């Protein structure tokens, strides 16, 4: 049972790290730049958020599975196999978590008065310095809020994970999958209840943290 908690936390944390940089980059791109194909990128990114997770899992299997388009290639040249491994759970978690982060970054960067960048520029700061010292810190709480949402989403991930990573106890069985198995097993009700409580606790904490940070973000945004 502890295995499941550990795997859940591991998968959620690693996928948070995986999506951090691409999430910030894509969010900035969507908020501050205008380019061709923007709408397409936007839709593709948000697809995992609206697709049934089982479908996401199946598509991932088609692409990254051992016989998949990319999976075959990864297996042959790098010996990497993501399917039915905890790294596979990280992959699907990242896919469903990324749109949440991108959205949070995009919204918080749109909330920042763009003229702060002007003010920074006339003080002699180039675009990179302006990004690191002005845009990023001002969007900071929003980015954290998005990360936490992605983390929570990963904890709750079920459909895509069971298709792509399977339900292997001690290896890919996360809290959600373990609860599912326990419900199917006669006499495991108490264990299921325990895990459920852990799950509720983690989710509540995540929502509170995300909420707190969003409010902090709004305060900063208004105060120009």
């Amino acid at each position, binding site marked *: 049972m502890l295995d499941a908690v550990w795997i859940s936390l591991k998968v959620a944390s690693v996928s948070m790290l995986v999506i951090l940089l691409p999430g910030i980059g894509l969010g900035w791109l969507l908020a501050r730049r205008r380019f061709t194909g923007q709408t397409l990128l936007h839709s593709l990114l948000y697809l995992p958020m609206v697709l049934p997770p089982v479908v996401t899992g199946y598509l991932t299997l088609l692409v990254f599975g051992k016989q998949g388009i990319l999976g075959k290639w990864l297996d042959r040249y790098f010996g990497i196999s993501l399917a039915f491994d905890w790294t596979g759970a990280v992959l699907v978690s990242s896919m469903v978590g990324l749109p949440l982060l991108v959205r949070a970054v995009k919204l918080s960067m749109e909330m920042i008065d763009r003229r702060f960048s002007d003010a*920074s520029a006339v003080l002699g700061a180039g675009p990179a310095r302006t990004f690191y010292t002005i845009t990023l810190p001002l969007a900071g709480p929003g980015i954290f809020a998005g990360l936490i949402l992605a983390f929570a989403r990963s904890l709750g991930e079920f459909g895509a994970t069971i298709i792509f990573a399977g339900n292997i106890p001690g290896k890919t069985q996360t809290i959600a999958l373990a609860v599912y198995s326990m419900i199917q097993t006669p006499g495991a009700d108490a264990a299921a209840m325990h895990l459920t409580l852990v799950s509720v606790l983690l989710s509540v904490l995540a929502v509170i943290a995300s909420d707190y940070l969003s409010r902090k973000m709004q305060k900063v945004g208004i105060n120009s």
Partner: protein
Amino acid sequence: MKLNIQIYLKRSGFSLAVETQFNSGITALFGPSGAGKSTLLHCLAGLTRPDSGIIQLDTEILYDTRRKINIPSHRRKIGIVFQDCLLFPHLSVRANMEYGQTGDKQTRREQFDTITALLEIEPLLDRSMTHLSGGEKKRVALARAILANPRWLLLDEPFSGLDQSLKNQILVYLRRLHQATAIPMILVSHCPDEIADLADEVFFMEKGRLTARGTLTSGGVIDSACFCHSQDPKDLQKIKNWLIKNHSLRLETYRSTIRAV
């Protein structure tokens, strides 16, 4: 120092066509809202890109459409004090002021201390932005802009939102700053009495055009010129008359060289 400009810019329902020279000293830019004063300042600082034209500081070309030169804002060394200050809300007063500073540690420190003393900012240094009043914000924004060592300083409505006594206070600080640093300034304003004592030259602007220009002195020889035609002379005429009467403003007719865009 001289700032030579030819700026042409067209937006929906608005066009800006300004061809003139700014001299070092303090230049006041008058005009009704929507006259294009802020847009002009933004063009000078590189925040807005004119459709065509030239911006030249002494011999250095900052912008030239024909030669495809456009020095970005952060390399122009032209400072702006924005109307709403735009102090960075996540930084302290001190960090805001240090943001644009360059040079070695010793120089930075000396300059910081000088400006802090000049504008009497010491008691504010470790405060956060949320705990500053309107007048204090203006002072900090002024200090921040000056500490970046600009070659020219543009002030967009530096007195807006301040009551009379605060206006006078900022006026005193501005005069002190100009005496201490000799940085040329362009100052956008609505009210003539605010800058009558401060400015060396006055430019009048209406509907995206410079309509008149004159030199203010408390006496002595006046070198002045008047640009093209004024389109809506009512309010500006009052200001002009006031300045002529009380501050020996002298305007002369001047044949415009501005072409239509």
